[in-house]
């Protein structure tokens, strides 16, 4: 498009200077946007909450899971891997926001109380809203997003349209509360795609641990980062080890060839959860790769 030069327009800076200017403007816009979103609520949302896994945090823009946003977690199989991943994130969010209460809304059954202990969550802090239909679930989520006392909201939704998705995203931004939309799983409908209004979208499925792999107490997930924040799709193998204060394995950066679990510190000492997310082996790029995803114990 050709534009007539106006006297007000500054002369276009050449080459590298232009890139620099664009980068500066981008940070400026980000700053203005951030200020605009937190102005509406009394409690500003804290910044992104890191996963505590360097590889994932490094890949995500902002260095972690954005708060005051809606994130979608799709179940990739019939198991509860997506729920487990969401619970692990909620445990992180409750610590990062210093709020204890969180809300579950859905049509089926809420998570089993004694099972929450494995994620360092106390069932007494869970508010359960059993809804009769998807409309009620979305309504309850929107109400919860306006309650600044909540750390997070976990919603079990089968059907959602663009309008409802946008409403949720707006409510999350204004309220500063983070919502996790759980799709699919043993009770949900598989393959129901959400319109692109969630800040990030993940797909989680169970990952078999080789006998003894990752210790006997642990859940392995294959986590696909599908989209969000302009970052490229990527996949990781994540090991959740409940009850281990600082055991958090680190990544092996170069694919499935060398994917042993190593110990390493992933978070500040104050944030050390009773269970820690740990990471192994970002799978070779792309979100859809199939094949051998089983982590193997490294020899050395």
């Amino acid at each position, binding site marked *: 498009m050709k534009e007539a030069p106006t006297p007000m327009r500054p002369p276009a800076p050449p080459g590298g200077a232009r890139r620099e200017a664009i980068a500066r403007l981008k940070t400026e816009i980000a700053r203005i946007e951030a200020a605009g979103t937190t102005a509406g609520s009394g409690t500003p949302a804290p910044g992104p909450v890191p996963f505590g896994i360097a590889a994932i945090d490094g890949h995500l823009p902002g260095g972690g899971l954005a708060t005051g946003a809606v994130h979608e977690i799709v179940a990739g199989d019939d198991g*509860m891997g997506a729920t487990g991943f969401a619970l692990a994130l909620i445990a992180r969010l409750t610590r990062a926001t210093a709020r204890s209460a969180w809300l579950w809304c859905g049509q089926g059954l809420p998570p089993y109380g004694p099972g929450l202990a494995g994620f360092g969550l106390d069932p007494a802090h869970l*508010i359960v809203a059993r809804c009769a239909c998807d409309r009620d679930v979305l309504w309850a989520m929107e109400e919860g997003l306006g309650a600044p006392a909540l750390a997070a909201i976990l919603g079990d939704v089968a059907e959602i349209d663009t309008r409802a998705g946008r409403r949720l995203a707006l409510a999350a931004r204004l309220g500063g509360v983070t919502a996790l939309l759980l799709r699919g799983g043993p009770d949900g409908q598989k393959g129901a795609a959400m319109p692109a209004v969630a800040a990030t979208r993940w797909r989680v499925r169970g990952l078999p*641990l080789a006998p003894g792999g990752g210790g006997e107490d642990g859940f392995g997930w294959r986590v696909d980062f599908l989209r969000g924040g302009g970052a490229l799709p990527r996949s990781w193998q994540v090991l959740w080890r409940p*009850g281990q204060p600082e055991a958090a394995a680190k990544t092996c950066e170069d694919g499935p060839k060398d994917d042993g679990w190593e110990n390493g510190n992933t978070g500040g000492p104050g944030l050390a959860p009773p269970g820690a997310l740990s990471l192994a082996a970002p799978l070779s790029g792309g979100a859809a790769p199939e094949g051998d995803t089983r982590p193997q114990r490294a020899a050395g």
Partner: protein
Amino acid sequence: MWIGSGNRLAVVAANHAAEAAGVRVGQSLADARALCPALVTKPADGAADARALTRLAAWCRRFSPWTAAVPADPEIPGEAGLWLEVTGCAHLVGGEAALAATITRAFARAGFSARAGLAGTPGAAHALARFGAQFTDQDHAIAPPGGEAEALSPLPVAALRLGANLCEGLDALGLRRIGDLYPLIRGPKRAVLARRFPSLLLERVDAALGRHFEPISPDRERPRFATRLTLPEPSRAEAVIERACERLVGELATRLAAHGIGAQRFVFTAFDTVGRSQRIVIGTARPLAAAKPLARLFALKLGGIDPGPGIDGFALEAFETQPLPLRQRPLGPEADGDGPRQDPRDDAAALAPLIDRLHGRLGRKRVGRIALHPNHLPERAQAFTTADAAEAERPPAPAPPETGPGRPVRLFPKPEPVDAMAEVPDGPPVWFRWRGTRHRVARALGPERIALDWWTLPGWQANPAAPAQPPALGTAIRDYYRVETEAGTRFWIYRAGLHRADAPAHWYLHGIFP
């Protein structure tokens, strides 16, 4: 009806049949039973009686604005009753006799047997109501103005509310009727009477005869929180209903806040032109007096009002009122904000509005919390409690029983039967079929043996008369395995009972791990 007083059980009320058999109020329970062996007796509930009397006193304000309930007194039989100060009220229904008849008729219609006494002093009215029956065939007795002394004269001294001991003392001297006392309360004999008996006697006689003023203290009327609005002409517009609700909520909230009172139940009524009324009831988790959250709660439900031919009146009432707890406002710069700021970490208080709104749309039974129970049986280790109960009496949370991954995040309330094949009879399965899909087990952890409390099982409870045999050893147990399929899904499955050579094993899937 009897009540224990000291070491004596006394009759405090008797119905007509019992009185016909000779039972009298004030008798000891043993005497009454001796007189009438078929007597049905019940302990009296003084608190409930007092509450009922208070309600009746409030109801009686239709006859007089000045009413009071007299609670029962175990020392004075038949003391319980109602006072009505009817000065200036009788002409409204056509005179004193008509008033007394109206009142007793109204009580009879409501199922009470009541007697009325009407006199210039409370003491005389009290005596006539309780002891005047023998001199009139009506259910009320009236002393003409100034005629109290004459009307009381034939009544027994007990009519003066003196108590059993004092009555016996007077009886010993031959003073049985109130008239017998008249010569003694004037002149030099009055001093003798005062020395001999407690001052109560002279006080009561003087009060009954009007020589000494006895006040009636009315029950304090509790403030009633209600507002109403009448439209100049009926309307069917939704916006009008919303505006009316907003305005009434604002008025009511101002009044509640002025009294420092919050309410937990609000009823909004819309009256339409054909005389129908529609109600919206809102309940809140904690006492509420603020207009804004209340208006939001009503906004959820206003759509349910059908304007019909047009609505011309609204009313809003607050129930279950109680004083609001005082909130301390922070000092310092934060105090300059508008209204008290809430600490987001102040869990229960900050969450109450959210829970109220969830209640409003989803229903009270559907919103709540999960309470852990110290029970070995997985399906009984948790229970859903509604938010009301949880907020009212939250039990101290027991320490989570397991910190490891020993419990799934999805538990089926009813374990689902699966076909399974195990390699060794009492080992974990190598494959199983669940919901039509065959899963191969790659890894299994366990078993974790959980014994059932067999004494609560249905078969055992069904026949308490015949001593049933406890279930055979080893049948009321479950061996749980955490299995991981080759696809990477982790399940919690169990075998019911020990392995037996003569019966196939029954496998169930009970939960899914993350």
